[in-house]
């Protein structure tokens, strides 16, 4: 009886086995790394909003400060989205007839709020407090990036737990004076490390690593 397989089958069998290992490892790697991609974290994804509001224009060019609209940024667990009335403070007279702002005027007339889409959407098992981060001297741009250069706001940070813990482990290197919290493009002084140590003492900044800091 002749051989069923010729000699080249050996090589084929070995290649197949090697490929199977590579495929399995690659598949596992893919599954594990999927959570880091913007497909899951939504980092840098442009989200369609009901109005094409441009932070680049309002903050970068006009120079309106974060707190003018996000009034609760230093007082509440959520920085807040402004009511339509805030838009109308200026747009009652500026671009008062512009078609692009018709949804704003319609909302103001009817009292029905504009339905903005949340960009920074933390999981429901995270109890995040915006005010404490501001009170401890973490700048807006540290987490949100250069909002003043964004025509449409995207999520600048991955907002993964690893990212949170990275700062919670050693918060000092992300501190700045409270007076500079809303500054975009802050130019740190040369003695930055020294200043941050000082601020950490003054603001009583602690490394918060307990589970219950964020999860209840």
């Amino acid at each position, binding site marked *: 009886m002749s051989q069923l397989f010729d000699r080249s089958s050996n090589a084929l069998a070995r290649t197949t086995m090697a490929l199977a290992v590579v495929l399995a490892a690659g598949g596992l790697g893919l599954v594990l790394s999927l959570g880091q991609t913007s497909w899951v974290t939504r980092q840098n994804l442009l989200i369609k909003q009901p109005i094409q509001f441009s932070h680049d224009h309002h903050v970068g060019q006009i*120079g309106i400060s974060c*707190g003018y609209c996000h*009034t609760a940024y230093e007082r509440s*667990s959520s920085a*807040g989205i402004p009511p339509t009335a805030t838009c*109308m403070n*200026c747009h009652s007279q500026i671009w008062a007839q512009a078609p692009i702002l018709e949804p704003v005027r319609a909302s103001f007339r009817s009292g029905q709020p504009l339905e903005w889409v949340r960009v920074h959407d933390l*999981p429901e098992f995270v109890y995040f407090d915006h005010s404490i981060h501001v009170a401890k001297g973490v700048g807006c741009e540290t987490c949100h990036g250069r909002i003043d250069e964004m025509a449409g706001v995207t999520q600048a940070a991955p907002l993964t737990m690893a990212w949170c813990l990275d700062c919670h482990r050693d918060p000092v290197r992300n501190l700045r004076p409270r007076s500079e919290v809303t500054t975009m493009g802050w130019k740190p002084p040369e003695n930055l490390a020294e200043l941050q140590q000082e601020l950490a003492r003054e603001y009583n900044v602690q490394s918060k690593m307990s589970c219950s800091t964020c999860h209840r």
Partner: protein
Amino acid sequence: MRPERLFACALLALGIALAGCRQDMHDQPRLKPLRESEFFRDGSGARPIPAHTVARGNLRADTVFYTGKWADGQLADGLPPQVPFGRALLERGRDRYGVFCAPCHDSAGTARGMVVRRGFKQPTSFHDPRLREARLGHFVDVMTNGFGAMSSYASQIPPEDRWAIAAYVRALQLAEHAPVAELSAEDRERLAASGANP
């Protein structure tokens, strides 16, 4: 273990791991600030205060602190007792003035802010005689109720910050009309160095 059994185990583990890739725990029906709600007819989870009700702690019987006016409607001539005067108040005022007022009134109070330059009706300069003589409560009243083209800022600026801003506006008025002779030697030097024409 035989290879096919090992393979089956690996497949099962992968299946279990993939079954964990769900967002149910991330997206629970928990009400976050300003989130939409299916429960209320208007779809808004943030509820407006019902008419004719007062939330606990919001009685605001102390009219002068909340409105800048005494109960008889007279504008207050100074700070109310719960707002202590000091450097901290003026610095808070400067900070909040920069956020809420400077877009129109500009950082010096001369009413040439960016929003005015873009076409908004120009307000009166804070250095106008009428506003220099206005009582402190006037500024708090305007922030609380609006004035002319300016809408109310009551929902954006808490009462204590309104007083801080009013105090800072007074400081701006003082600074604009301060005689050079009254400045300290150090300030006079800085003024000369800046090249400004007093």
